[in-house]
């Protein structure tokens, strides 16, 4: 297995361990952790730290909860693990556990296979990019991206944060070269132009829409903004 060179920061991993990031971002982190043994170890250390912190918490003016005890202890106990929404992920009960692109195929990490379980609908975008959106939450835009060999994304800037997890192949921008399992974060100050020679499959999470900054691609901005607003309009 290839080793990742770019990893999520401790801050992100800690927030993740505490359940304090959006679902979209959590999915990207969970997938990276499945692929990267050093982040698996690190996130479990940070989870342990979070638990120690949590144990020190002393609520001060909290309500009295003891009235709940009788209701709770009247419930029957379980003797086996419930299988509600957490049935084991078998490759055959998921619509998409592998993604095939040209002559390559790639087996998805479990959480991404689950995210893609309703099927993927690929759209062709400019510059040899294929995109398949998955609706994971109402706060982020999540998508699989496949850049065909030799393709280049128009220069763009991010209004918020964009996380990209490389699943297969490789791409580069002026900041570096990224291969399988790499996890990169771009924020709104970063303007970049990714390109790939060999082709690249990624999972990307945006917490606000992209803004293209050059040429005709700018025409895409209002459309993209609209789509993002629509995708994220169901906040409570």
């Amino acid at each position: 297995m290839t080793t990742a060179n770019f990893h999520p920061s401790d801050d992100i991993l800690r927030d993740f361990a505490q359940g304090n990031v959006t679902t979209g971002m959590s999915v990207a982190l969970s997938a990276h952790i499945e692929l990267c043994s050093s982040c698996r170890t690190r996130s479990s250390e940070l989870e342990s730290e979070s638990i120690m912190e949590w144990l020190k918490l002393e609520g001060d003016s909290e309500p009295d909860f003891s009235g709940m005890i009788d209701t709770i202890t009247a419930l029957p106990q379980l003797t086996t693990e419930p299988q509600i929404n957490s049935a084991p992920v078998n490759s055959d009960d998921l619509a998409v556990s592998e993604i095939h692109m040209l002559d390559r195929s790639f087996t998805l990490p479990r959480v991404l296979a689950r995210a893609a379980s309703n099927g993927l609908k690929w759209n062709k975008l400019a510059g040899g990019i294929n995109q398949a959106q998955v609706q994971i939450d109402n706060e982020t835009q999540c998508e699989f991206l496949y850049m065909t060999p030799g393709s280049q994304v128009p220069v763009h800037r991010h209004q918020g944060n964009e996380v990209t997890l490389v699943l297969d192949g490789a791409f580069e921008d002026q900041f570096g070269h990224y291969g399988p399992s790499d996890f990169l974060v771009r924020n709104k100050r970063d303007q970049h132009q990714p390109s790939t020679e060999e082709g690249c499959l990624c999972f990307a999470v945006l917490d606000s829409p992209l803004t293209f900054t050059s040429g005709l691609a700018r025409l895409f901005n209002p459309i993209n903004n609209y789509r993002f607003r629509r995708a994220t309009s169901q906040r409570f």
Partner: protein
Amino acid sequence: MNSIEEVTSKPAVESVKTDDGPSDEELLLAVGVSQDRRAFNLLFARFSKRIFAMGMKLTRNEQLAQDLVQEALMTVWTKAPLYDLDRGTAQSWIFTLTRNRCFDMLRKKKRQPQTISADDIWPQESDAEMSVVHEEQGSQAVEVAQIERLYEHLPDAQQAVIEQIYIFDRTHEEAAAELAIPLGTLKSRLRLAVAKLRTMIGVEQ
């Protein structure tokens, strides 16, 4: 038996003994094994405020935080029979269960699609191993886990014998010498201990 990776992937939280009372693990096992309400009351007192505090931090909403206390402690009660020491400390077990319940509660509240749940995002470390073990060895694995847990409930003298024979892999003679007891005593303690374990896990003689 365990690879390094399995060991390091387990939460490394040391069990913290609060006050002078029983440890959180002892309480949780008592709730799971014998529906001990007194033990549950103690766990409730130790954890409800912490759970409320976590709920306030993640939801910033008092009503949701209260709901979380109810949901999380309900899960502690109903799932306690599934807890064993292989799953880490009681504290990390309750922490992850609370975080996961809170995550799913917020997703529901925000009307997010239900494709993904907290259990997909934080798969239980043991799931993958367990399912393989279960296919290969069926209920044996469950019994082994039970024995490891129940062994600690044996009288000290019997535990010492079991430890010599099954953990340090000594012969009966070596074990008797080590414990400075006659060979006959060792053998009868061993027999008693094994019989007691059998009864505890409900296996007929």
